[in-house]
């Protein structure tokens, strides 16, 4: 109890300094939580598009980005005909723009695609899709920001399209996207005879290895990955995640420097007090524990406050209409645990030098100058 009081007392003795350190850690944690959650949400949303009613994704081997992948239509037909395949849906991704929105994701799909099957139709029907080569279905949010309704014409890129339907999906990318008939999308993006990926659902999950082997054998330039496998290995996702953690890590590093500064000051201003503790039987280990305890307390407080700020910030982001559907505010427990552990580690690392310094204080030298 007294040991804890020694720790707390010292933090309370210099309240402003302690608060600044806590704020440093808190803002770092909030930044890390926000960046990691938003990017992880984005990654999950994008992988959600690919895994819509499918288990396997086939795309061009060694492409850095799926937008550059080219899967020949002939491969779609062949793979669809394999008995183990329940359905194989080609998807062509493209980026288009409208007058107000520079980036709108465009999905070139067939009328059998799971996205259309699973969506809630706000306007139009699924049967309307594909009849008119210039007919597009808009996600609800895309319809909102384009101020479009069924029957209207919208300008996308350099062309005009008729809106034949408006759908609502849970996925932010899809909800803000444009769905075109595959052939129209191929013509629009000058990718005739190809799609970006094929999403495949098998009759039995046990056939996954066989499908992968068949694709490898029949189409060496293509690769078939399970959805989870794809999410893990797709380089863009890896880069995004690494960037998120790196940016957050830099924030924490700054917070850690704040803790280090506080702890250094804390030790330097009470050399005599530490000497007295030594004379009264405190071991170097107990002194170090006290210093690390102070920094751990700062870090834990900072982490808790940071998690609250970060969560509040994520909710605020979700409320912004332009970001509706794009920000997934569900903070993963693993992220919370990692963030807290990183904050603790940062705090403890920041206290390393001060703790070592404190353990090396020679009581006799500190006491000689009364």
């Amino acid at each position, binding site marked *: 109890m*007294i*040991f804890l*009081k*020694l720790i707390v*007392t*010292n933090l*309370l*003795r210099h309240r402003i300094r302690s608060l600044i350190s806590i704020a440093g850690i808190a803002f770092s944690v909030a930044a890390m939580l926000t960046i990691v959650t938003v990017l992880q949400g984005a990654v999950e949303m994008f992988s959600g598009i690919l895994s819509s009613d499918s288990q396997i994704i086939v795309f061009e081997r060694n492409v850095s980005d799926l937008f550059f992948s080219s899967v020949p239509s002939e491969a779609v037909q062949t793979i669809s005909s394999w008995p183990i395949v329940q359905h194989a849906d080609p998807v062509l991704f493209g980026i288009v723009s409208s007058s107000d929105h520079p980036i709108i994701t465009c999905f070139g799909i067939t009328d059998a695609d799971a996205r259309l099957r699973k969506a809630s139709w706000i306007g139009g029907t699924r049967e309307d899709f594909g009849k008119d080569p210039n007919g597009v279905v808009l996600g609800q949010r895309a319809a909102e920001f384009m101020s479009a309704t069924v029957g209207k014409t919208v300008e996308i890129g350099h062309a005009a399209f008729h809106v034949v339907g408006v759908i609502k999906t849970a996925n932010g990318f899809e909800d803000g996207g444009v769905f075109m008939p595959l052939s129209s999308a191929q013509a629009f993006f000058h990718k005739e005879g190809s799609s970006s990926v094929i999403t495949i659902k098998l009759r039995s999950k046990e056939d996954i290895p066989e499908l992968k082997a068949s694709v490898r054998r029949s189409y060496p330039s293509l690769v078939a990955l399970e959805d989870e496998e794809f999410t893990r290995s797709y380089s863009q996702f890896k880069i995004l995640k690494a960037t998120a953690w790196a940016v957050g890590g830099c924030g924490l590093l700054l917070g850690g420097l704040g803790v280090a500064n506080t702890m250094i000051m804390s030790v330097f201003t009470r050399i*005599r*007090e530490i000497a*007295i*503790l*030594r*004379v*009264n*039987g*405190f*071991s170097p280990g*107990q002194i170090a524990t006290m210093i690390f305890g102070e920094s751990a307390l700062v870090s834990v407080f900072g982490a808790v406050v940071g998690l609250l700020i970060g969560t509040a910030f994520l909710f605020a982001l979700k409320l912004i209409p332009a970001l509706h559907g794009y920000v997934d505010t569900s903070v993963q427990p693993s992220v919370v645990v990692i963030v807290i552990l990183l904050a603790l580690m940062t705090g403890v690392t920041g206290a390393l030098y001060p703790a070592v310094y404190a353990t090396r204080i*020679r*009581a*006799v030298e500190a*006491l*000689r100058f*009364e």
Partner: protein
Amino acid sequence: MTTSNRSPTPPIVLLATDVWKSYDDGAIAVLRGVNFTGFQGETVALCGPSGCGKSTLLHLLGGLDSPDIGRIAVNSRELKPFGNPLHLLRHEVGFVFQLHNLIPDLTLEENCLIPTVAAGLDRKAARDRLRELTDRTGLSHRLGSKIQKLSGGERQRTALCRALMNKPRILLADEPTGSLDESTSAMVFDLLLEIVANEGVTLVMATHDRTLAARCGRLIEMRDGSIHEPF
């Protein structure tokens, strides 16, 4: 059959043999071949001018520092040069300084319990001991007081309690009443002598105050880093 009337010599608890100590790489020689023997239960006053080596000798006897040359033994165990004096500081030796050296933001009670926390003493035993010492020193009504609220005499009595919390057999006091006025000084010193007598503690005290020194069982005169013990 004959019986001796002589009381047996008490055991030696402190022994310094030909101790030399200097600072600043030998530039300042503080102790020059000091020999000192402290017996169990006796009270010894180290007198002498500032800089004669009184405090340094106390620090060496308490294991806070190591001699350049010579040997120090406490309770018949020789201290290793630059060894770990933890056991010594936790269980065998207590220190009282001129300045009380209490931690200002803690209460009297918490300050006194610090050595027991360091030594991992049972909490109940620690509180019993605290009650015993504060009763003796008249501080039991001030247990919850912050150090800033205590008078100089109370602070020094608190420091005395803290030094004796783990029941050390040796008390090393460096000008324990040096920062107090005359009457408070006499009162604290009375208390100090009473407690060490009751507990059978060996007291070695550095002081400038000849009157207080004269009340100790033995007075040792130090000059220029050497001991000149009057016989």
